[in-house]
């Protein structure tokens, strides 16, 4: 994504006035004083993004139906993020306050809003109009979706990880919104505790109707139906991140530091099977959280670190028809390295991942020897 010059970020296209949004005065959404010639005085009280944190008085004035569940969208409230962080250490009020401060300084910037998808680039990538303040019905993928979901999703989807191919859907020209619809983005009646529980989230079977059926023409599909997530067979290696630490530098500016990322492919146990994900085996991605992530703010904040796995169910966006593990049965059923095993865990994370690691005695290594 090309960076924008400061003036380009706020340059309005004169065509804006000819569209339906041009019927509304600037001050009606943004506040400020539209008669004042001095730009400093004119901007007094200006609201940069009138759609965050509450879009009901701006976008909602006309788009009431779309905005009604706005605050329940995980792109707005980051609720699943908080569930996981509080789950690891938010039990004590004094600690929770410090975690909240750290989250405010380092994490909560990564949200979206109506405006930060349909008008400008997200704030977390320093904003800037997408096209002269002209509203975009479909947010452009490179400047909006992958501007935030860049280091993992974009690189996987577009084949930017050296030695790994782009997703077949990308090669077919599919953009994010083909699967991730507005209905998913705009929120529904419920606030999910996990991003995989978002209603209207993409489902492979929506297009590949017979793929997960026991009547599928493909033997492997019939054999593994309901037991393996689609990704277990159809993804290739993906990025895993480690050891995120946050703090403030000498000037008081917030920073984060992460350790080196690694490309890996690990099949593990599904920690919490549910109606949409009933599988025994799923892919697992290591997330960057560490026992010491918030040490700058409060030592040993994540006292319940061992209660939540650091290897999380993953849906890498690098789908292939043929992969190193699925081209022949023996590829997967003779190779222990595809599976997350005790030896793969960092010593300080062994306890946290006991529910997802595949024990040696149940490894599905069924070709060439009898299964125990």
């Amino acid at each position, binding site marked *: 994504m090309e960076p924008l*010059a*400061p*003036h380009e970020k*706020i*340059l*309005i*296209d*004169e065509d804006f*006035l*000819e569209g339906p949004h*041009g*019927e*509304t*005065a*600037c*001050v*009606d959404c*943004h506040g*400020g*004083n*539209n*008669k*004042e*010639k001095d*730009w400093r005085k*004119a901007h007094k009280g200006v609201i940069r993004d009138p759609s965050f944190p509450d879009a009901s008085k701006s976008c909602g004035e006309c788009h009431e139906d779309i905005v009604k569940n706005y605050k329940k969208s995980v792109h707005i409230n980051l609720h699943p993020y908080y569930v996981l962080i509080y789950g690891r250490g938010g039990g004590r009020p004094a600690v929770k306050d410090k975690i909240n401060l750290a989250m405010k300084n380092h994490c909560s910037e*990564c949200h979206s809003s109506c405006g930060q998808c349909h008008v400008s680039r997200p704030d977390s990538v320093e904003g800037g109009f997408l096209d002269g*303040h002209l509203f975009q019905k479909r947010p452009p993928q490179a400047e909006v979706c992958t501007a935030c979901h860049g*280091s993992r999703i974009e690189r996987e989807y577009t084949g930017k990880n050296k030695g790994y191919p782009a997703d077949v859907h990308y090669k077919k020209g599919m953009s994010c919104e083909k699967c991730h619809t507005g209905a998913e983005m705009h929120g529904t009646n419920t606030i999910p505790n996990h991003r995989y529980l978002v209603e209207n989230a993409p489902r492979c079977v929506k297009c590949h109707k017979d793929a997960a059926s026991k009547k599928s023409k493909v033997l492997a599909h019939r054999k593994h139906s309901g037991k393996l997530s689609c990704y277990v067979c159809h993804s290739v290696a993906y*990025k895993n*991140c480690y050891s*995120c630490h946050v*703090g*403030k*530098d000498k*000037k008081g*500016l*917030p*920073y*984060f*530091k*992460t*350790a*080196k*990322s690694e490309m890996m492919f690990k099949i593990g146990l599904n920690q919490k099977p549910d109606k949409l994900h009933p599988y025994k085996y799923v892919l697992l991605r290591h997330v960057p959280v560490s026992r010491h992530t918030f040490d700058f703010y409060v030592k040993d904040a994540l006292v319940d670190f061992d209660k939540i796995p650091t290897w999380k169910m993953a849906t890498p966006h690098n789908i292939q028809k043929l992969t190193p593990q699925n081209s022949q049965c023996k590829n997967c059923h003779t190779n222990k390295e595809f599976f997350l095993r005790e030896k793969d865990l960092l010593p300080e994370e062994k306890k946290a991942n006991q529910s997802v690691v595949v024990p040696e005695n149940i490894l599905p290594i069924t070709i060439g020897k009898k299964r125990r």
Partner: protein
Amino acid sequence: MLKKRDGFLILFLISLITSFLFVFTVNLFADENSECFKCHTSTKKLIQITRIIAKERPPTKSEETKGEG
């Protein structure tokens, strides 16, 4: 044949519709003459102002940030 009274009525209706359209058109582009629009559509003015802002504002990004987000 149109009666004189009908003629006045038609003229009245035409003038009413014309004035309504005029008011509507003026309101359609509510901010064409606002200072916001004049400035935010001028590349020259915005370059000048953003240069001033860049000089006045302290940096917001730490140089210590390292790794992938």
